[in-house]
């Protein structure tokens, strides 16, 4: 059964051209503007494992992937609240099957920006070790999976499609704050380490940077120990999970 449902979900997502633009085309465009077409793009990172273009490529792929999963997580919550959950509750379909379909869907849709941007990156001068290519891609997808919880929380809390769009839109701000679009330094960097996108992007770039942060002002590079992004991800995973559980309970109590 899940195959039919999954295929239908893919068709639905495919029809949503606006959404696909924001998840795939926009981040790819951002990569071309800030990565491929810049003079600094061919500079090697201090670790020597890849160049700046690749660093920006991973960042933009991560941005596209979290946009995809936030939208899917959020819409899943809204959909269920608006009665589709009751409709499915009348069939033998189990909740676990539903979650599985949505998880597969999230992964598939998140793969679109990652594949697109990695292909463009490969064609336009992003260079690095093979291990860094593969590992960063996997880490981007893993981080994006976590962000489906972010969308879920918004959907559960506000129950409207508008709230889900707002959640996706808020990712732009989180991306700036999370050291994703533009390398931060000083106080801004300290704040960045507390925001939810920082950890997953830092981890996705870890195979390239090994924790060395990129500076734009020519200052000596700063090293960020691995525990910082790991702790960031662990804390945000906990916060989002607890919120989601509390919101699901609230939803049940109101039935």
């Amino acid at each position, binding site marked *: *059964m899940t*195959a*039919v*449902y999954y295929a*239908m979900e893919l*068709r*639905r997502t495919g*029809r*949503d051209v606006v959404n696909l633009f924001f998840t795939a085309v926009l981040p790819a465009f951002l990569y071309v503007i800030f990565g491929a077409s810049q003079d600094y793009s061919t500079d090697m990172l201090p670790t020597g494992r890849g160049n700046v273009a690749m660093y920006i490529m991973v960042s933009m792929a991560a941005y596209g992937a979290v946009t995809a999963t936030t939208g899917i997580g959020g819409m899943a919550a809204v*959909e269920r609240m*608006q*009665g*589709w959950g*009751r*409709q*499915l*509750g*009348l*069939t*033998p*379909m189990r909740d676990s099957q539903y979650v599985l379909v949505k998880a597969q869907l999230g992964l598939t849709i998140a793969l679109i920006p990652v594949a697109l941007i990695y292909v463009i990156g490969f064609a336009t001068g992003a260079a690095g070790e093979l291990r860094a290519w593969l590992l960063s891609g996997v880490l981007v997808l893993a981080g994006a999976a976590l962000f489906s919880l972010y969308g879920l929380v918004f959907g559960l809390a506000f129950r409207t499609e508008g709230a889900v769009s707002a959640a996706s839109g808020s990712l732009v701000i989180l991306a700036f704050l999370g050291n994703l679009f533009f390398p931060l330094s000083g106080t801004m960097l300290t704040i960045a380490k507390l925001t939810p996108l920082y950890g997953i992007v830092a981890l996705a770039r870890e195979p390239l940077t090994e924790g060395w942060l990129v500076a734009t002002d020519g200052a000596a590079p700063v090293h960020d120990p691995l525990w910082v992004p790991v702790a960031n991800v662990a804390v945000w995973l906990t916060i989002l999970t607890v919120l989601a559980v509390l919101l699901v309970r*609230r939803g049940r*109590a*109101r*039935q």
Partner: protein
Amino acid sequence: MTTTTEPAIDLVGVTKTFTPVGRPPVEAVRGIDLRVGRGEIVAFLGPNGAGKTTTLDMVLGLTQPTAGRVAVHGRPARTAVLEGRVSAVLQSGGLLHDLTVRETVQVIASAYRQPRDVDEVLERTGLTALARRRVSKCSGGEQQRLRFALALLPDPDLLVLDEPTAGMDVGARHEFWATMRAEVEGGRTVVFATHYLEEADAFAQRIVMVARGRVVADGSTAEIRARATGRTVSATLPAATAQQAVATLRRRPDVVAADLAGDRVTVRTGDADAVALALLTDLGGSGLEITTGSLDDAFLALTADDLVGADR
């Protein structure tokens, strides 16, 4: 085989209390005992907030009762759903607006092990012409027909309809019940909640009236009418003795009310035969008529009584 004798629905002492966070608990269902036999067509009638939807949700396994026992074909409700023995048309929501009609039917069909043929179901519910239309572009009545199509997919023994014709115009409502009639000919059990008394009257064999989370009346449509209002007996009285005859009638214990308009008396009574006999013999009446009250009267009488009782 024991399964063939199990009732379609068996509710014993079922209650449901919701406890919303930060607000006082709501007793939606306050103790319902109800047994629906196989092949029965039962209307669930009651005002808004009477507990109809909550009760039906428990029959469908969507909500667990706070107390009491729910059995559908002798099984827990969820088991009956998993076996495809019971399905339902829900009141609102429940559809994805960006799917087409056909895709919606296909997706739900894929959830069942042995669903009916998608095209056949579309045909039977008059949706074939709309198959490629987006759900968002369908009218309320068309969406309701789609929900009905989804409910037919498992070929259920028990069909639960929660206000199936809400939001339909008269024509769509008529068409809906015509389709429904064809679907129940195979001996399906049908339980439907409705606001429309004429629907209950026209389609159901039995009416269960609920108000404030309790069953206030349960019987055939004719019984329900009679129980609430009794019958109305009217006759023309001789002008000379009319006043006196009315006074006599009012003293009878089986008379609820007697009103005189001109020389015609109208008597509401629980025992129409005895009153008719008295009118024709002792009281000298002529032109006798006996009518049963309308279902609307019954509805108002029964639910109003309960409101008084509850507020006491």
